[in-house]
């Protein structure tokens, strides 16, 4: 099943949350492979385990058992520092709620991963400005999150996920807090990045329309994969909107 083009490979993944006496079996044996350069959408009702799976894929959390191989490396064998390095450079995570540092400029927010990568100050600035430009925010470098719209904030978050040049972007409901137009803008950017750089994208959505921007859709229910379908002709989000100025497609 795994081959040299498989960037993410999980086998029989289980996650059990313990809350006092109660146990929540959030993942009940998920097996999945993600190919290099693919856009994969995860769907499923609320509580089906999508975020749980994404957090494990993003090395933010550990499975209770099961195997996770990321870019050829067994994540369960990584120590704390290696996990931090994986979060820093192997995957870029985009959250539903943006998670930007308040009172901190877009530029500084985007530079954050580079701070922990040990990049020099000048290089940090250059690369952060570059990715902010790529997401159409060249004129918003010095704006703080509360001076930006939701869509703009999510684009800052995407820039931050991109800045250390990971091979995978993991986005947990990136459009969940956005109106449909901003959501489409965000999807257009992700699609363009995928097309131009070949970056792999795994995104969670419960909006069926958003899932049609992907090349493959996997449905989770109650911690298990119940369906996997390939989208024959993914919709190009860029065609569905007039993009704001400055975003080159």
């Amino acid at each position, binding site marked *: 099943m795994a081959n040299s083009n498989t960037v993410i490979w999980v086998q029989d993944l289980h996650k059990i949350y313990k809350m006092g006496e109660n146990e929540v079996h959030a993942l009940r044996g998920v097996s999945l492979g993600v190919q290099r350069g693919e856009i994969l959408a995860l769907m499923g009702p609320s509580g089906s385990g999508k975020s749980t799976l994404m*957090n494990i894929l*993003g090395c*933010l*959390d550990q499975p209770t058992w099961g195997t996770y191989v990321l870019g050829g490396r067994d994540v369960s064998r990584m120590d*704390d*520092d290696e996990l*931090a*390095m994986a*979060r*820093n*450079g192997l995957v870029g*995570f985009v*959250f539903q709620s943006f*998670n930007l*540092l308040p*009172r901190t400029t877009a530029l500084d927010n985007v530079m*954050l*991963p580079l*701070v*922990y*990568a*040990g990049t020099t*100050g000048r290089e940090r600035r250059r690369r952060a400005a570059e990715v902010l430009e790529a997401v159409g925010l060249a004129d918003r470098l010095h704006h703080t999150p509360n001076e930006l719209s939701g869509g703009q904030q999510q684009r800052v978050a995407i820039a*931050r996920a991109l800045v*250390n040049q990971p091979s995978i972007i993991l986005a947990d409901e990136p459009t969940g807090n956005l109106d449909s137009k901003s959501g489409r803008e965000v999807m257009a950017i992700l699609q363009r990045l995928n097309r131009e750089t070949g970056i792999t994208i795994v995104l969670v959505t419960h909006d069926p329309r958003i899932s049609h921007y992907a090349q493959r859709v996997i449905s989770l229910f109650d911690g298990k994969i119940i369906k996997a379908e390939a989208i024959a002709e993914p919709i190009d989000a860029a065609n569905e909107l007039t993009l704001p100025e400055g975003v080159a497609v």
Partner: protein
Amino acid sequence: MNLLEGVRLALRALTTNKLRSALTMLGIIIGVGAVITLMSVGEGVQSYITAQFEAIGTNLFFLVPGSFQEELRRPAFITTRDAEAIADPAQAPSVLHVAPVVQGSASVTTPGRDRGVTVTGVTPEYALARDWQTQLGQFVTATDNQSRARVAVLGASTASYFFPDRPDPTGEVIRVNGSPFRVIGVLSERGGSSFQNEDDVVMIPLNTALSRVFPRRTTTGEPSLTIVYVQAVSEERMDAAIEEVSLILRQRHRIGLDEPDDFTAISQSDIIGTFQQITGVLTVFLGAIAGISLLVGGIGIMNIMLVSVTERTREIGLRKAVGARKRDILWQFLTEAVMLSTFGGAAGILLGAAGASAISYFLRDDGFSAVFTVEAVALATLFSAAVGLFFGIYPAQRAAALNPIDALRYE
């Protein structure tokens, strides 16, 4: 992230909450301020005392009967003949002057006045050894001593107490324990900055004192002295003088080879050393008390850092989510805590210096001045940084141990 960046980051976090940072530092400021003030004052007291004793002379030592360390089998005395033997240049070439003294309290009266005063029986050598001068009349002479003359030399304050409206009381009569003494001189003032008022004395000839006022006798009936002042020919020959004198006394007192001295020689440097030890202990003790307030300041830092970690849980989660390692977070919060405490420490040093100068200013007439030492500053700086480290480590560890997902989900 390098050190400079860490400091910049910490500065930013601390300045977002200026009032809170200032209040947190206040504990350290007061603690360090107190340490610096007390240590400077302690040092000042030490050098003040040293100066007081050094004024007396560094080539002087005293002999007193008895021993402070050993239990003696016989009662110990130093007699006038002992003093004569010590004064013999053939036996003790390193000794310059020997001043045997008998001293005690006696009631002194003039018509209308009556008071207990320290009466000292002296020889002319006493004025030489202790550097006494008379402002009026003359000191006790050898003839006075030999003839057991009933004459008295008054200290400056004694003279003004008993003869308030007589600028020159020489020729007047005082009664010491009832016996009349003619005043032959008044001593120059020693100055008021000593521990006991040396100007409140009555000096009479030693032999007069031994026969009339303090008729103390040894078991064999010889007159017994209170103290003998011995002046060495020079400071360098102090040790030699003490050795010569000890040898003479041991022979005269027939002390066996394995027996301890039945007298004690105390030099100025012994006394200064003892006082320095006492004030040193006091300084450390006061410093330690002040250190407790520093500790309280440290607990304040810990408290605020714990609040800060809780408030910034989401920030910590995010930093970890984008690749911060445990030690990055640890350093971030530790830097903040140490900066709080060292800034507080720096301000406290300034406050302490101000406090020490204020005390010196108020006591300037007594010739006292606090000594602001580099050691105190270094100690305070080190200590406050250590307080920051010590009390910052727990909150920082709590921050570093947070799980990124739990931290991000924290409301």
